[in-house]
């Protein structure tokens, strides 16, 4: 083949590839689970959570090639998952599985370019990836950030610790990613060098970079509205415009550095002085109004979730508390079998919580009370929060991924 013909074919390949990239973002009829707290930042799903649980609810389970605490991300019936393996967890893995049958569709591996030291309970694959429906964006505790399309083609790479050598946390980093309006927001905050970086989703280049307080922070950003992202830290909350990184409003009464905020409509539920509800302006042009503050709704490690008129928290003492989102009044409490690291998922009048020992509990509730109606022991340590899409609930441990579903539907 002559070089000229080859060059023509090469250009055609590139052109077709660019067309496919441009057209790959068709809306899906199924609701995805695109990031840590689901499609609306609430931890709520329209997927049905089984009220009773048994091994029959396990649609499939899959052995994983590495450790991880990240939540699976689901889109277009594909499950995207990160793992880390090797003696020092230096091998970073991004897996894509068929959400229907659990078949591995592809895997890409990378070498960690940043430090992989972390507490033995966590792992290098702690932060949850995100997707905009066209590409998957995955970050690891080593601050390696990769962008792949849904077929596993590498779009771009970043080594954030290579860029900024003191961005690391010796206990491990865990802030998950969000993507909105074509900007990936990476919150990389620690004691020695802290930033929030807005990264062009197409090229992987910085759009902006904000210097942040030098303080360890394991919370994740949250999309408030398209183009507006909330950042939580020990100082409080900053809402930023992702086009330029400018701060739109602040809440400066402090906040937790472990559980993250969640939202319902234009109300933000912040782990601050227990739990604080803030009504915010969708355009970010006014300071938020504090609706209530409740020490009775103080979350432990799991983040709060909200559905309908009720916000839920799991305390350090493993007590699930339901609160009225308008008043903050406690509706009911229920002691669960813990301890918990994973954030629960809620659907309709059922909430699913999984303990660190892999004990899955299904809680049916109304305004007056909650009751454990089903349980299932996965007999494995589960620290990762569940995801819900493609007809099921997805749970992962350091060694396995399960899909649970309501067998009666």
């Amino acid at each position, binding site marked *: 083949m002559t070089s000229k013909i080859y060059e023509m074919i090469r250009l055609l390949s590139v052109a077709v590839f660019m067309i496919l990239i441009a057209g790959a973002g068709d809306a899906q009829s199924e609701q995805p689970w695109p990031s840590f707290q689901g499609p609306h930042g609430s931890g709520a799903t329209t997927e049905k959570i089984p009220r009773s649980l048994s091994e029959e609810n396990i649609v499939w389970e899959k052995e994983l090639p590495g450790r991880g605490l990240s939540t699976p991300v689901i889109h277009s019936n594909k499950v995207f998952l990160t793992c880390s393996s090797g003696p020092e967890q230096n091998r970073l893995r991004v897996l894509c599985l068929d959400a229907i049958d659990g078949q591995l569709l592809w895997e890409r591996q990378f070498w960690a370019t940043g430090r992989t030291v972390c507490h033995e309970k966590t792992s290098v694959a702690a932060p949850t990836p995100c997707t905009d429906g066209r590409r998957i964006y995955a970050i690891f505790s080593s601050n390696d950030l990769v962008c792949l399309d849904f077929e596993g083609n590498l779009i771009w*790479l970043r080594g954030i610790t290579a860029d900024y050598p003191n961005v690391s946390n010796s206990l491990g980093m865990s802030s998950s990613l969000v993507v909105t309006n074509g900007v990936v927001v990476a919150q990389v905050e620690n004691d020695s060098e802290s930033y929030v970086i807005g990264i062009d989703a197409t090229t992987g280049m910085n759009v902006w970079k904000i210097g942040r307080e030098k303080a360890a922070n394991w919370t994740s950003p949250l999309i408030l509205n398209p183009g507006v992202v909330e950042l939580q830290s020990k100082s409080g909350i900053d809402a930023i415009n992702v086009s330029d990184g400018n701060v739109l409003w602040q809440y400066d009464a402090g906040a937790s550095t472990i559980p993250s905020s969640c939202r319902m409509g234009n109300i933000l539920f912040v782990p601050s002085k227990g739990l604080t509800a803030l009504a915010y302006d969708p355009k970010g042009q006014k300071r938020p109004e504090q609706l209530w503050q409740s020490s009775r709704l103080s979350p432990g490690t799991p983040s709060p979730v909200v559905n309908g008129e009720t916000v839920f928290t799991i305390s350090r003492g493993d007590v699930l508390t339901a609160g009225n989102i308008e008043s903050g009044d406690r509706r009911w409490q229920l002691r669960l079998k813990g301890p918990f690291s994973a954030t629960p998922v809620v659907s309709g009048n059922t909430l699913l919580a999984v303990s660190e020992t892999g004990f899955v509990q299904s809680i049916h509730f109304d305004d007056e009370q909650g009751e454990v109606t089903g349980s299932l022991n996965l007999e494995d340590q589960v620290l990762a929060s569940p995801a819900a899409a493609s007809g099921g609930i997805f749970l992962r441990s350091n060694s396995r991924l399960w899909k649970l579903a309501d067998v009666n539907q």
Partner: protein
Amino acid sequence: MRSRSFFRCILVYTVLLGAGNAPAETLNMNLNTLQSVGKEGFGNSAATVAWQEVAACNAGSIPTILSSIDGNSPLSANWIRAAVDAIASRHKTLPLNDLEVFLADVQHDPRARRLAWELIQDRAPNRAEKIIRGMLDDPSVELRYDAIDRLIRKADREKGSPAATELLREALSAARDVSQVKKITSDLQKIGDKIDLQQHFGFLSSWYVVGPFDNSGGHGFTKVYPPEQSVDIQATYDGKDGPVSWHQFLTADPYGMVDINKAIPGPGDGLKEVVAYAFTTITFPAEQVAEVRLGCKNAWKIWVNGSLLFERDEYHRGMRIDQYQLPLKLKKGSNALLLKLCQDGQTKDWTKQWQFQLRLCDATGTAILAVDRRQTPLQEEAEATHGELLAP
């Protein structure tokens, strides 16, 4: 959806027909693009296109593509390895002979060679198993790890026999991974072997320490105290609570732990909101490339021959051997190492620790021992230096 499938078919067809047989100069051009990526996403846009073409190559190109990792940045290595992953996932048959030749050449990048071995392992596990047997001293940390792991498992199967002891001794001399060394050492010590772990890893055990200086509010981290300007072992400085002088401090800890709370004992749980310095010299007959590997859970700075190598302002988040791996060039003759070690004001039990462990090694973790290295101290010898003044 139908039109997307059509385009996808065209893409696959053109890619397989065209780019799969890419001329060498085109492949080289694309690999150059992947090698050129830099910090903050520099070169990403061009790399995205180049990656597609490299990933579309035939399996026969894999050794060439792997060799392009040699001498290039970790970031570009990730671009290139992802392309190899993509090629390998499309082809059932890989050029195993060529991969084995690539693997045998230790001049190639250790990570690329490891990937070559994993491809062989995936397609021909028995062949990979035979290869790994001879990789005890391999420059690839991962290949070496698996070769040693095989020996450890064999020794476990023959536990208690003279053959098992010999296997463990052979494994120890090659082992660089801390968890493997701990496991082997534990087994050998049970049968009476004496193992000098400080020497095995290259930990530095002999230091001069001075302090405390003030670190109220964490401000001592940036404050320049006299040892940062020049080190005079005979000098006396104004410290936080009065005059301070250099102490000699030896550690007998097998993993070279230097406990500043023992070097500068304080009341109760030890000193708080303080700074100390540790200094030592190491002599080499020729210039050489090395790594300083440091474990420390307190804020620290390190200078080598008067130049700041790295600094980190983090307290009590965690510590492990080789936590920080800092490449450097050592000069011929005497080299001076100065550490600044800060302790903050936290009062919880787990914030009492004020310590570090530092070793010199090459990229595989093999110890680099100075010609003037002091023999590993005995426990009594080390304890005699705890908290004692060198000279008035």
